[in-house]
């Protein structure tokens, strides 16, 4: 267990402190959200209609930004050998990387989500749910994204490949996340969509580390 904690600390340090990946994603997210009223017009009615959907697409795209470096850096400089020979199995290495990706990337994005929502004219009552949905959805984005990053290891132009592999898998959280927000705004039951969102994310945490570990083994061998 101490090996896992050691690795998690390193991953957080690499994701947070160096290169500013996390804040960069937040900046990207708020910039996209700020562009939406310029594109569709500032009519509050229309913004309210497209707001939740656009915000979710922006969130999904923002989580892609820091994925390319997640495994590729370790692969290029030989650190992945060290990680593969460590005290914990590669599945736990993948779990630590996904968790760090969520804490360092998903958490700041979840904080930025209500701010972006305000810019899109979302009513205040909706903001807590926006935060919660971005936080839970971000967990799924981080783990599915990490799996994509592992699958793209060693490929030329891996960043684009990750996006192509991962974006179709982002469909369920986008549907359920935006669906929960729309249902809440319309006064309907939003809990079922939210529960599906949470189920997707938890399934991603449980399953993707196995796929990521297999992909890493394949890339190293």
């Amino acid at each position, binding site marked *: 267990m101490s090996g896992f904690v050691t690795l998690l600390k*390193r991953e957080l340090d690499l994701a947070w402190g*160096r290169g500013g990946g996390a804040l960069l994603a937040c900046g990207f997210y708020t910039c996209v959200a700020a562009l939406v009223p310029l594109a569709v017009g500032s009519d509050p009615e229309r913004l309210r209609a497209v707001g939740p959907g656009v915000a979710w697409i922006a969130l999904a795209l923002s989580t892609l930004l820091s994925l390319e470096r997640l495994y590729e850096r370790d692969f290029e*400089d030989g*650190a992945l*050998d*060290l990680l593969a020979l460590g005290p914990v199995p590669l599945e736990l290495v993948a779990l630590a990387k996904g968790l760090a990706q969520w804490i360092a990337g998903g958490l700041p994005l979840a904080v930025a989500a209500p701010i972006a929502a305000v810019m899109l004219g979302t009513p205040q009552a909706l903001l807590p749910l926006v935060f919660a949905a971005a936080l839970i959805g971000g967990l799924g984005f981080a783990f599915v994204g990490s799996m994509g990053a592992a699958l793209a290891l060693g490929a030329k132009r891996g960043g684009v490949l990750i996006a192509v592999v991962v974006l179709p898998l982002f469909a369920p959280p986008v549907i359920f996340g935006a669906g929960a927000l729309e249902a809440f705004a319309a006064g309907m039951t939003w809990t079922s969509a939210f529960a599906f969102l949470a189920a997707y994310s938890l399934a991603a945490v449980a399953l993707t580390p196995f796929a990521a570990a297999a992909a890493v083994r394949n890339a*190293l*061998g």
Partner: protein
Amino acid sequence: MEFRRPGMIARLTGESLAVARGGRSLFAGLDFAVAAGEAVALTGANGSGKTSLLRCIAGLIRPEAGSVGFAGDSGPLEAEEARSGGLHLLGHQDGLKPTRTADEELRFQAAWTGADNAGVEAAIDALELKPLLKLETRKLSAGQRRRLALGRLIASPRPLWLLDEPLAPLDARWRERVGALTAAHLKTGGLVLAAVHDPLPVKSRELAL
């Protein structure tokens, strides 16, 4: 520096080992053995499979045929267990993060391989890393980075060292110094298998690919 607890590697063997990369066979039918206290210099032309053999022993590459075996004082060891706790693989890349300081990287690599604080201090002393610790690793020279990467071998004592061109970036003084550290490692019952082009600075047997 005591790692000869029961269950640790005292003998490494390869039996009719064959390794292929990218559909091309590198070597086949390779038999070898390394015993405790012995250094083996792995030689061969560029592309003859020295690195692949080391990675195969470490379990990163699956052999096409044959097997790698680890044995302790009291009989054969389970390969996965022997690998995760019994060997260091030092590739020709150092695995250091350019934006982290030497201190952070040394402490991570040491902790990841199971070293405690005393081990880290021993490594800092043995490899004279003190003046480098505050620097980001991208500011170090190739030789300094190699010394830093060698740190985990000292910090966390493990019997089997698999080294890939360990001396290449080092200057004459440090080659000698690393030779002395290797000799000390062999004296405590360690095993060394090193891919080299220049002779190892310790008494060694040659294994040509």
